[in-house]
């Protein structure tokens, strides 16, 4: 089966600066495809080339096997990272404006209900809160009943409640079989929503797969964290040399973090040292760690 969207050897140079360097991937119908990476990794450039907004330096983007054109325009929905809307229009008028730009549009009342826009329908679109604004922009992206929706960092800057609320909206869209391409800073978000992710850095894809597979591939260990003051300097010294099952991952002013493949043995070690286990934290490694592992830098950098 032809993938819904195919990216082939896509490249974008800005003068001498290479923003996106020869990347290829494809997106299947009904997937939620996540794009992760630090700021400046080339996520937005890639998404905007896929949307046909930016002209690639070289490479192709194929929608249903054809170069993107009018059909794609009519069947895609877009939510940009930064979107300004025409002044002096209410939310309802803005929706009607965009509905008028497509040959067919979804039922406005249904869309308004799905995106919870009822309470501010007649407000000027410039006077919305962050969460309201993102919901309106999502409604605009969905106004043509798109087959594929691009969401570029839709939850950046939202409070946790609005973010969870927005995730529910996205899940609702996915449940209708719509394909979603989502770029995000939040690993939690990718883990919650995405079937497949790519991690980008410096214009390259450095990891690709489903979140679960990626974690299994990269990590089979757990993290053990405890206060430094509980340990004798000599014990810390011995931790410096990796053993068969554990190694020192991080040493901060107050905390020590050990990566271990055998939690039991690590705890045995600590008990021998007389460490108070009340302060002990054990967790699985998550996408955030994966990200740090593969890019070597903090996500929000």
């Amino acid at each position, binding site marked *: 089966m032809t993938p819904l969207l195919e990216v082939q050897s896509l490249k974008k140079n800005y003068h001498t600066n290479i923003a996106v360097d020869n990347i290829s991937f494809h997106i299947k119908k009904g997937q939620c495809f996540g794009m992760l990476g630090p700021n400046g990794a080339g996520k937005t450039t890639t998404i905007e080339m896929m949307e046909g907004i930016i002209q690639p330096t070289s490479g192709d983007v194929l929608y249903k096997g054809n170069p993107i054109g009018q059909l794609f325009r009519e069947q*895609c929905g877009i939510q940009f990272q930064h979107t300004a809307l025409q002044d002096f229009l209410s939310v309802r*008028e803005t929706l009607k404006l965009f509905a*008028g*730009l497509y040959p067919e549009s979804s039922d406005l009342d249904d869309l308004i209900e799905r995106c919870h826009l009822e309470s501010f329908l007649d407000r000027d679109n410039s006077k919305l809160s962050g969460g309201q604004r993102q919901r309106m922009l999502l409604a605009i992206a969905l106004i043509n009943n798109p087959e594929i929706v691009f969401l570029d960092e839709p939850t950046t800057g939202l409070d946790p409640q609005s973010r969870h609320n927005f995730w529910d909206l996205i899940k609702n869209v996915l449940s209708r079989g719509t394909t979603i391409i989502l770029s995000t800073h939040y690993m939690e978000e990718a883990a919650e929503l995405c079937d497949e992710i790519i991690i980008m850095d410096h214009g390259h894809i450095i990891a690709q797969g489903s979140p679960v597979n990626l974690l299994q591939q990269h990590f089979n260990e757990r993290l053990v964290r405890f206060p430094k003051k509980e340990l004798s300097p000599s014990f810390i010294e011995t931790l410096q040399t990796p053993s068969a099952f554990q190694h020192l991952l991080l040493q901060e002013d107050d905390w020590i973090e050990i990566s271990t493949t055998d939690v039991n043995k690590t705890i045995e070690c600590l008990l021998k040292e007389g460490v108070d286990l009340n302060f002990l934290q054990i967790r699985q490694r998550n996408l955030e760690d994966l990200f740090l592992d593969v890019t070597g830098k903090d996500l929000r950098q």
Partner: protein
Amino acid sequence: MKRFLAILHARNLEFIRDRAALSWGLIFPTALMMGFALLFSNGDQELYKVGVAGELNHPFQDSRYINFIPVDDVEKAITKVERHQLDLLIAPEELRYWVNSSSPAGYVTEQLLKASGGETLKASEVSGKEIRYIDWLIPGVLGMNMMFSALFGIGFVIVRYRKNGVLKRLKGTPLSATEFLMAQIVSRLILILFVSITVYIGCHLILEFSMYGSYVNLLFVFALGSLAMIALGLLVASRLKSDELASGLTNAISIPMMLLSGVWFSLEGSPQWISFISNLLPLTHVVDASRAIMLDGASLLDVSHHIFALILMMFIFLIIGVKMFRWE
């Protein structure tokens, strides 16, 4: 068509709701006209003006407070008498003079002429309403307002929309650049005509302009002029992303255009190069054509050279503007 109408509707709503800009568009030209009317309401303070065709050897020429103006073209001078631009016209060789029966100043100068022994001259009465400076000014002010509205209202807004990403969002829809630009043009045209008609009617009620031509012709010239200037606005805005630059460039176009198109004063008799530049400006043709229609009752045929120039400019600006247009 559906897409065009959607953008047109949204744009019209925006114009109507942008109260500040709309009221300014109405108040500014009206206030300007009222100001000038007030300024010139006392008529000519200086002298009586008497046109002389030929050599005047007559005691009348020693009269004080009369400005004797030599005229070459008697026909034109008679028109000036009709419009109260000359109080009296004397053609000594023909032993004739012309005076406007409805002009008080004409009556006074005629009495002065008679008192200094002018009975030998044969009187010819002409009639006609006075053409005041404000009658002459109104086409200029309306044209100027049209120009500012077209250049700033279209050019500026598009550059702002490009800068803040409104255009980018529209690019992500099936809307084509031509559909978008046509909607901009039509909505601005409607707005300019609405403002021009309102200002015209408002000023007319208070100042009562001379209007010798057809309102349909006048509206046609205004509409054509608006289109040419909107097209110029689109051309300026076709690529710019910086509103400071757009503002500077728009000012650099509009201010010389205002000065060189004969809005405030006639450019008759100015150096050749000025009238050459002047003829390249759309505003010149709007102002000249509408003045000819209003003051001389000219037909569209009479002003066809202006109409042709405006159509030509409109197409040139439009074709280059659409070709150069970028969403981003």
